[in-house]
């Protein structure tokens, strides 16, 4: 059967089980769009900026575990995708991005809207393709989805010249993939697993550091079994949040720059670190030279290149987290570690993570806590990047698997709203809250239009401090309060909501918080709450950049409150 390249793309998307595509069209991808109506199973969601197409596909992928798909035209369409692709790459999110390209005869001629898309995206994709032979399209499509999803997931881009989209060729869907050069290791080496089990069984102060790899491999039960059986406390990374129930007795929060003091202390005191599906990012480890000084380290990760990259490792295990844990759990003996756990509990009492100051002011931490209470911890929380992201991570408690969606590696402001769109599209039955900063929100708020158009009941909480808050905090602490370019004016977000047809309220006082959240929950569609929070509230604890986890600053607030306050209008 002869099909056009465009039809082949759609056939392959359907075969891969794709049900939604986020994108914006343009001349060089028009033939593909023109073919979409022939495939009603493919729902296309028109966004308002290609960055949002990529972030929405990302949010969709994180929420569902399936490959997110985004599409854009050549040139500016493709370059607008770049931030979203890079974001997905650093956080190992499975994504396929399809871009239009100028016709083959024009490639290399600086044609209108021609850009070297595969060149630009080379370092931020797991792999990419420029399709020069229409006959190879089915194979490339299949490979792309396989690569995106398997091993360490990541974004794969396919750049398709316009004349490839219109050319008719015989269509045969390949039954299998031949990629001799790509064979992810899943099983974990038995001898290494045995060594790891021995270390775990002999450790006195073991600690699990669990990352997003647990979520990707859906190894929740296996992680829990390991922790419970061997009685090992669990600390997660920022992106590992919600891979282990935070109300579990063995849960000790998350580590790193704004992690809990007791979690960071635990890392310092441990004699064995069991790192699972995490990559020792510098925001997690602080100064690597003084990271976990007394610990031997077991590192389980699917990507061999992560082993030994940032931290010396004693027992590396390359493999899929869930598969490896299954095997490891069989060799682990029931443990006690009563003194160690007691020690951690004492630290937790001494350094409560969740302390919220009693004050008249509207504190962001208080807002998050109330969102937690009203949603009964059942919501999926999607964030922007900044202080609000850290507060959302600290003060909401995540008991349900995979309910915290945030931009970790790239730290992309503007991620929140489009990722929430993707998460809601992927999981329409979940309650999705986008917790955003006024700065982050303004980077992608044009996509409120998408929310309305698709009738997505995304609830949006803007923690409005009138600053690029996280940077202001650095200026306050490390640049003698020189607030250069961080005071931020914004529009009236309630009116913005009205303009888009989204109900919105402004909250200035504590007692208005709960009613507003309830109103949002009770309304059927999207809802915006503009929380006018204390402008110069800081995120603590904090490990200063470059310092070791032991140098954590906890509550300098006591001394700091008396500092002269800048009046904000």
């Amino acid at each position, binding site marked *: 059967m002869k099909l056009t390249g465009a039809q082949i793309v759609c056939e392959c998307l359907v075969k891969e089980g794709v049900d939604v595509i986020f994108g914006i069209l343009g001349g060089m991808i028009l033939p593909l769009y023109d073919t979409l109506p022939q495939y009603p199973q493919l729902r296309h969601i028109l966004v308002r900026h290609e960055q949002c197409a990529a972030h929405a596909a990302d949010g969709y992928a994180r929420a569902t575990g399936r490959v997110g798909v985004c599409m854009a035209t050549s040139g500016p369409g493709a370059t607008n995708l770049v931030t979203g692709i890079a974001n997905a790459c650093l956080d190992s999110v499975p994504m396929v991005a399809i871009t239009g390209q100028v016709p083959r005869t024009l490639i290399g001629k600086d044609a209108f809207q021609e850009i070297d898309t*595969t*060149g630009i995206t*080379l*370092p931020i994709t*797991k*792999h990419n393709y*420029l399709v*020069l032979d229409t006959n190879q399209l089915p194979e490339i499509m299949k490979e792309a989805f396989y*690569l995106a999803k398997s091993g360490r997931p990541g974004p794969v881009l396919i750049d398709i010249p316009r004349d490839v989209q219109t050319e008719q060729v015989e269509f045969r869907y390949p039954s299998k993939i031949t*990629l*001799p*050069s*790509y*064979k992810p*290791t899943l*099983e974990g*080496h038995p001898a*290494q697993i045995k060594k790891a089990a021995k270390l775990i069984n002999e450790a006195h102060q073991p600690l699990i550091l669990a990352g997003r790899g647990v979520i990707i491999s859906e190894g929740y039960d296996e992680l829990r079994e390991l922790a419970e059986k061997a009685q090992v406390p669990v600390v997660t990374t920022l992106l590992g949040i919600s891979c282990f129930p935070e109300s579990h007795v063995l849960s000790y929060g998350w580590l790193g720059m704004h992690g809990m003091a007791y979690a960071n202390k635990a890392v310092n005191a441990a004699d064995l670190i069991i790192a699972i599906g995490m990559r020792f990012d510098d925001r997690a480890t602080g100064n690597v030279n003084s990271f976990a000084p007394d610990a031997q380290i077991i590192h389980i990760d699917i*990507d*061999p*290149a992560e*082993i*030994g*990259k940032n931290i*010396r*490792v004693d027992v*590396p295990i*390359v493999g899929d987290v869930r598969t490896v844990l299954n095997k490891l759990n069989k060799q682990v003996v029931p443990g006690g570690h009563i003194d160690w756990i007691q020690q951690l509990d004492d630290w937790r009492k001494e350094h409560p993570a969740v302390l919220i100051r009693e004050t008249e002011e509207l504190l962001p931490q208080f807002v998050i806590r109330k969102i937690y209470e009203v949603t009964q911890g059942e919501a999926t929380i999607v964030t922007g990047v900044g202080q609000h992201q850290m507060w959302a991570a600290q003060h909401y408690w995540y008991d349900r698997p995979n309910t915290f969606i945030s931009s970790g590696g790239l730290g992309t402001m503007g991620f929140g709203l489009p990722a929430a769109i993707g998460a809601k599209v992927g999981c329409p039955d979940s309650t999705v809250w986008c917790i955003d900063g006024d700065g982050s929100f303004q980077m992608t708020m044009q996509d409120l239009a998408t929310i309305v158009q698709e009738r997505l009941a995304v609830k949006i909480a803007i923690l409005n401090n009138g600053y690029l808050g996280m940077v202001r905090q650095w200026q306050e602490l490390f640049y003698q309060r020189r607030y250069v370019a961080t005071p931020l004016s914004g529009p009236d977000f309630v009116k913005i909501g009205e303009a888009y047809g989204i109900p919105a309220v402004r909250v200035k006082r504590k007692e208005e918080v709960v009613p507003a959240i309830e109103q949002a929950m009770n309304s059927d569609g999207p809802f915006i709450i503009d929380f006018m929070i204390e402008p110069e509230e800081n995120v603590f604890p904090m490990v200063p950049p470059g310092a070791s986890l032991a140098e954590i600053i906890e509550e300098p607030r006591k001394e700091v409150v008396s500092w002269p306050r800048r009046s904000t209008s």
Partner: protein
Amino acid sequence: MATTKHILAALVMDRPGVLNRMVSLFRRRGFNIDSIAVGPSELANQSRMTIVVNGSPGMVEQLRKQLDKVVDVVKVLTISETSMVARELALIKVKATSATRSEVMQIVDIFRANIIDVAADSVTIEVTGDEDKVNSLINLLRGFGIKEAARTGYIAMSRGSQDAVQATEKPSEPASPS
């Protein structure tokens, strides 16, 4: 940390952009390439690449693993100097008048090099060997005046019957990181 020269031997798929992908990785991870040589291998659709880099063993192992991750790379190994054969080829155009030509030719003989082109005021010499040999020849010729020199960089293989890089499975366990 002490940096030394390391030789990486890679087997890669002949797909568009594979060289670009690898070179881009060197740049991104902050490695300087001393030399890189690529050519067809004995296998259909696959090329062999020999890369010489400077770095500590730990850095080079990290680089090797990153290269191995490139989807079109079948396999990469670091080959140790003791168990390999490595050669490079150089072309050297050196000034040679009737007065100096015989002296140049003597040197060429000692090095088992060849003269492949002769002009009125120069000769072009072809030499293969390890780096030291090529360096010493170039040094000796310098006195006559080198007009142009071009070197291929190493191509390398492991000695004896071991296969440096065969199209076998990727190693399931990383070498213990240093």
